[in-house]
C-alpha cells in the first residue's frame, strides 16, 4: 500500500511517516510501519529487531473488544474505511469502522492515535470520524487538505455523546434545569 504523502493529525496537516506493509512483503528494517492483525498476532505484538514504530492495522470486520488486550500497546491503530462495490451502485461507503473507533475509545479506553485510512476518508466525513474518536486521517488522494481542516469546524453542536466533540445538547439541557 502506498502511503499518502500527507496526513491530518489532531487537525494539523503533517507529513505522513507511516508505511503500511502488506502481508506478502518483508518488513523493512526501519521506519514507522503498520502490519495486519494476523502478522501482529503471529509476532505477539513484539518487533524487537525493528528500528522505529510498529502499529497494528485492523480490517473493519474485526471485533475490537475481543482483540484489544493483544493490541493495547500498539502506538497507533489504523482503521479501514473502504468504499465497496455493491451489485447495484458500485459505490457504497462502508461505515463499520465508525463503530470500531467508538468501541476502542469509549469501551476499551485506548488513548493512542486512531487513524483512518481508505477511499472513504474525504473532507466531508472528518467531523463524524473525529467524534467517533479518530484523531488522524490519511486522506484519499486529491483532497484539498486546507479545505479539509475547515470541515472540522462545520458543526459546533451535537445531539449525541460520542468519543469526542462538544458536550451533547441533551446533557446541557439537563444541567440547565
Amino acid at each position: 500500500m502506498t502511503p499518502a504523502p500527507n496526513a491530518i493529525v489532531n487537525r494539523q496537516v503533517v507529513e505522513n511517516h507511516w508505511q503500511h506493509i502488506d502481508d506478502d512483503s518483508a518488513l523493512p528494517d526501519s521506519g514507522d510501519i503498520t502490519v495486519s492483525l494476523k502478522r501482529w498476532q503471529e509476532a505477539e505484538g513484539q518487533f524487537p529487531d525493528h528500528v522505529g514504530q510498529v502499529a497494528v492495522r485492523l480490517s473493519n470486520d474485526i471485533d475490537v473488544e475481543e482483540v484489544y488486550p493483544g493490541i493495547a500497546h500498539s502506538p497507533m491503530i489504523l482503521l479501514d474505511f473502504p468504499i465497496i462495490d455493491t451489485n447495484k451502485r458500485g459505490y457504497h461507503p462502508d461505515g463499520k469502522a465508525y463503530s470500531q473507533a467508538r468501541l476502542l475509545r469509549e469501551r476499551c479506553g485506548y488513548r493512542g492515535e486512531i487513524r483512518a485510512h481508505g477511499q472513504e476518508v474525504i473532507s466531508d466525513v472528518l467531523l463524524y470520524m473525529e467524534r467517533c474518536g479518530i484523531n488522524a486521517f490519511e486522506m484519499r488522494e486529491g483532497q484539498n487538505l486546507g479545505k479539509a481542516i475547515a470541515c472540522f469546524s462545520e458543526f459546533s453542536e451535537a445531539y449525541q455523546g460520542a468519543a469526542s466533540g462538544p458536550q451533547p445538547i441533551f446533557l446541557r439541557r439537563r444541567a440547565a434545569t
Partner: protein
Amino acid sequence: MYRYDEYDQKILSERVAQFRGQMQRYLAGELSDPDFRALRLMNGLYFQRFAPMYRIAIPYGMLSSTQLRKLAEIARQYDRGYGHFTTRQNIQFNWCKTEDIPDIFAELASVEMHSVQTSGNCIRNTTTDQLAGVAVDELEDPRPYCELIRQWSSFHPEFAYLPRKFKIAVSSSKQDRAAVQMHDVGVYMLRNEAGEIGYQIWVGGGLGRTPILSTKIREFLEKPHLLSYLEAIVRVYNRHGRRNDTNRARIKIMVRDMGGEAFAELVENEWNKIKDSYLQLTDDDILRMQSHFTQPDYDADAANDTQFEHYLNSDKGFARWVQHNVTEHKQPGYRAVYISLKAPGIPPGDCTHEQMDLIADLADQYSLGELRTTHDQNLVLADVRQGDLYALWQKLGEQELATPNIGTLNDMICCPGLDFCGLANAGSIGIAEKLNQRFDDLDYLYDLGELKLKMSGCMNGCGHHSVGHIGILGVEKKGGEWYQLTLGGDATHDASLGDRVGPAIEKDQIVDAIEAILTVYVEQREGDERFLDTYRRVGMEPFKQRVYATKEAA
C-alpha cells in the same frame, strides 16, 4: 408541538451552510458525482427521471400552519405549484432546480424544518400515529419519545453509513395506525404487569422486494432505556449487517437469516454495556420533552354545541363526510378530521399551494394552528370543535379537500411511479386514476367498507403494496407495464403480507381484475365482514378463478 431551542436552530443552520458548501463544490466540479451522491441523499436530494426530487422531513407527521405556509411558498416559488405527501409522513417536491436546493433548505430552516436524513443509508424520519395525543385508545402521547429519537438519530456520527436505510416507528395505541411491524425497528408502548409504561421492541420489518414483518425481540423495556436500546440495535446492525448486496442489506434480512433470538442476544449483550451510560433517560429528560406536547387549552363548552347535531340531520353530504372523514377525540365535543388528498383525478397525496394555504388558514381557525400527515397520504386536523365541523367541511369542499372517501377503495396509497421515479418499472398514478373512474359511485364504495388498496410502481414498495388488503405492484414484462396483484395484506397490529394472486396482468386489464375481486368479495362476504376478513375466511381460490376467468374471456 416541539419548538426548536437555540441549539436545534444552531445545528440546523450549520447543516444548511455545510450543504451549501458541498453543492458549490459539486457544481464547480470539485466533488465527484459518487461522493456528492452520498452527501446529497443524506440531505434529501435525489436525481430522478426528469428533475431532482427533494424530500423534506415532517418529524412524526407534525406540522404547524406556519410550516405548511412555507411549504406552499416553496411549491410556488421553486416547484410547479404543488407537493406530494409520502407514505412516510414526509413531503416531496418533484420539480425543483438542483442549484436552488440550498436556498430551499435555508427557507425550511427558518421555520424549524429540514430535509436531513430523508434518504441515504442512515436513520430516517421516525413515524407515529397521526392521532397521537388525541386518540381515545392511546396509552400515552408517543410524540415526546419520537422527538427524543429524532434528536438522538440526527447527525449521529456512528450511524451515517449503515448498510442500508433505517426506519423507526412508534405506536402507543390499541390500534396500530403507524404500520409498526413494517419498520426496521418498531416500538409499541405498553403497560407491563406491574402497571408501568414501557416499550415492546420489534426488529426487522420492511417492505420492498423482500417484504418481511418484524420480530419481537424484547417483551418489555423500561422507559429510561429507549435510546440505549436503539443504539445497541443500530450498532449491532452497523457491525454485522451485510453490505455487499443492496438487496440483502436491510436489517430484516439479517434478523431473518440469523433468527430473532440470536439477534436479540447480540443486542442484549451490547445493550448491557451501555444501558447505564449517559444515554439513560432521566425522569426530567422525559418531562422536559413532554412539556412540548402538553394538552391544549380545550374549550370546556365544546360538547354543549347543538349545531353539529342539527347539520348531521339536515345535510346528507355533511353527514356522509362526518361518517367517513371525521373520527372521535378523547376530549368531549372535539373531533379529529381527515383531509382527503385522494380527490378523483388527482395523484394520491398531491397537494397544491392554494390547498396548502387554505389548510394552514383552517388549521389556525379551527385546529389550534397544527396539523398532521398520515402514512396513508392524507392530512389530519386533530383538534376541531364539533360546532366548527360544518363550516370547516364547507371550506374544505371549496378546494376539493372534502372527498368523503377515507378508508374506502379510493383512499388508495400510491407511489409516484414511472411518471416521476427513476426506479419505477410501471406507472401507478394512471392506474389510480382509472380505478377512480371505474369506482366513482360513492354508495358502492361505502358498501365495500374498509378496503386498503396500496400500489407501488416497483419492487421497492414505496406504495406499501405488500400490506394492502389489495396490493398492486408494477413490474416490467415484455417491455411493457404489467401488474402483480396480492390479497390479504394488513399493516395493523394483526399484520400480514399479501398473497400473490397469480401471473402478472396487463395494464389494460388491471381495472377489470380489481372489479372481479370486488365482485367475489360482495358475493362471499357474511354480514358486515370486511374484505380482509372475507379473504382470510374463504382463501385465494375463488378470487383467483374469477380474475383469470375474466382475463381469458377478454
